[in-house]
C-alpha cells in the first residue's frame, strides 16, 4: 500500500516529541476523521526554524507525512517553510495512495497552524499565511448505489 519511504518515516519517524516553550504550536485535524497532528516549532530571532517536533494520532500516512514535513521545514526560514506544500511532502515520500492525500494536506496545514501561532504570539504578520483551518476535508467522490 505504502512506498518504502512512507514505511521508513512511519516506522522510524523523525522529530517525534514536544518542545517546551515552543515558539509556535499548531494542532489540526480531529478525531472524527481519525487524524490529529500537532507541530512544535522552535524559531530563532532570525526567523529560522531551529527545531521542530511533532505528535500525531493517525494512520501510517499521517505519521509519515508529519515526519517528512518536519524534516522539510527544519533549518528553513519561516518564509521558506511556507513554501513546503503538501505536494512537496508527497513527492519526498515517493507518493501516497489516493485515499491518503488528505494526510499530506493536513501536514501542510499543521505547519501553517504552528507558524500562525508563532506569528500571533509575536504579534506579527507572516506574508502569505492565512489563518489555517483545523480540518481538512477532501471532497470525497460521491458513491451512487
Amino acid at each position, binding site marked *: 500500500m505504502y512506498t518504502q519511504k512512507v514505511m521508513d518515516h512511519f516506522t522510524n519517524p523523525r522529530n517525534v516529541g514536544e518542545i517546551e516553550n515552543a515558539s509556535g504550536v499548531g494542532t489540526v485535524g480531529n*478525531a*472524527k476523521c481519525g487524524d490529529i497532528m500537532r507541530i512544535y516549532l522552535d524559531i530563532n530571532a532570525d526567523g529560522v526554524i531551529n527545531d521542530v517536533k511533532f*505528535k*500525531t*494520532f*493517525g*494512520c*501510517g500516512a499521517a505519521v509519515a507525512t508529519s515526519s517528512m514535513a518536519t524534516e522539510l521545514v527544519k533549518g528553513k526560514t519561516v518564509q521558506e517553510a511556507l513554501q513546503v506544500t503538501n505536494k512537496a511532502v508527497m513527492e519526498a515520500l515517493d507518493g501516497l495512495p489516493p485515499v491518503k492525500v488528505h494526510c499530506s494536506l493536513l501536514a501542510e496545514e499543521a505547519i501553517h497552524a504552528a507558524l500562525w501561532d508563532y506569528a500571533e504570539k509575536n504579534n506579527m504578520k507572516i506574508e502569505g499565511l492565512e489563518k489555517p483551518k483545523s480540518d481538512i476535508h477532501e471532497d470525497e467522490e460521491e458513491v451512487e*448505489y
Partner: protein
Amino acid sequence: MEKKIYLDNAATTKTRPEVVEAMLPYFTELYGNPSSVYEYASQNKKAIDDARTQTAKVIGADPSEIYFTASGTEADNWAIKATVEAYADKGNHIITSKIEHHAILHTCEYLAKHGYEVTYVDVDENGIIKLDELEKAIRPTTVLITVMFANNEIGTIQPIKEIGELAKKNKILFHTDAVQAYGQVPIDVKELNIDMLSASAHKLNGPKGIGLLYIRKGVKIRSYVHGGGQERQRRAGTENVPGIVGFGKAAEIALATIKEREEKECKLRELLMKRVLSEVPFVRVNGDKVRRLPNNINFSFQFIEGESLLIMLDMKNICASSGSACTSGSLDPSHVLLAIGLPHEIAHGSLRLTVSDEITEEEINYTVDQIKEIVEKLREMSPLYEDFMKKSN
C-alpha cells in the same frame, strides 16, 4: 516470528487442503455443465445435491431449501430485494439493525432511495439489538426483519430466537445474515424461526466466491439474478461446481468440528483478552462478553489509531484488522463501534483479532507482547495521549 500469524479469520479464512482436494476433480475432469443431458454431467448434478445436503445440515434445513449464490453479499441482496418485491402488496417497510454488514445496510439504503422505508433499530453498549425498540418499529406495512446472527466486528451474537418469535407473531418474514455464525455456532433454522439465512463459504475454510441463501419452504421470493433455469429457476448462471463442492466439504468439516473448535478458540480468546486487559492500560473490550463468537476479540486502545497499529503488527508478521475489512480505506470509523456508543477517537483505535483453531498459545503470547510494545510506541507520539497525561498530572 518468522511465520505469519493470521488473526483475521473473520475477514476470510484459509481454504482447507481437504476442501481444495474435493474441488480439484471438478476443474479438469468432471467439468461438464450440470444442466446437460448426458450422463457425464449427471455426476456434477449429484455433487451439487450432495453439497446441498451438507450445507443444509449445518442449519437443520432441508436440502431443497438451499440456494447457492456467489457470496454472502449476493445472498443478502437477494433476500432483501426479492422479498420486498414479492410482498409489495403488503407494504414497503423493512426493519434492520444499526450494526449490520454493509451488504445489508447499503442494500437497505439503496431501497430507501427507491420508495422503501427502513427502520434501523439501536443496539445496546454490547451490541445487542434492543428488542423493545424492534417490536415498536413493527408496522402493518413491515414486510421484512433482517438482523444479523453475529456481528463481524465485535462478535456479538443476537437474540435470534426472540427476533424470530417476534417476526412470526407479527407474520413478518425474518432474514438473518449468518455469514459470521454459519458453521461457527450451532444454528437450527426451525427452532429459531428463521425464514431466510445468508452464509458464505470463505468464512469457514471454504473457497471464496460461493455463498448460499436458505429460503424456508413456502416463502414467496422472486429471483434476483435472472437467466437460465439453474437452482430450480431461482438463481441463474452456470453453477460454480467446484465452489459448490468446496462449500459442501467445508460445511461438513465445520459441522463435525464445531465443538472442538469452539473450545480451542474460546481458550485462545480468553488468554488474549486476559493478558491484554491486565498488561495494557486504557483499553476496553468491545462486544458482549458471553454472547460472542468464539473466535472474535475486539479491543479499543485509547489515544492511538487503528491503521498504524495494524501496520506495525504487520511488520511483526501479525495479520489483524481494525473494523471490517471492507471499510478500510474509508475515513469514518466503524459504524458498529459508533452504534455501541464509542466516541470517534476511541472507535478509531480499535483492533479486531479473530483466531482459528490453527493458532497456538505461543502465537497468542507473542502477539500480546507485540501489541504492548506497539501501543506504547504509538502513544508516545500521540497528541491525545500527551493531552491526557498532562491533564492527569
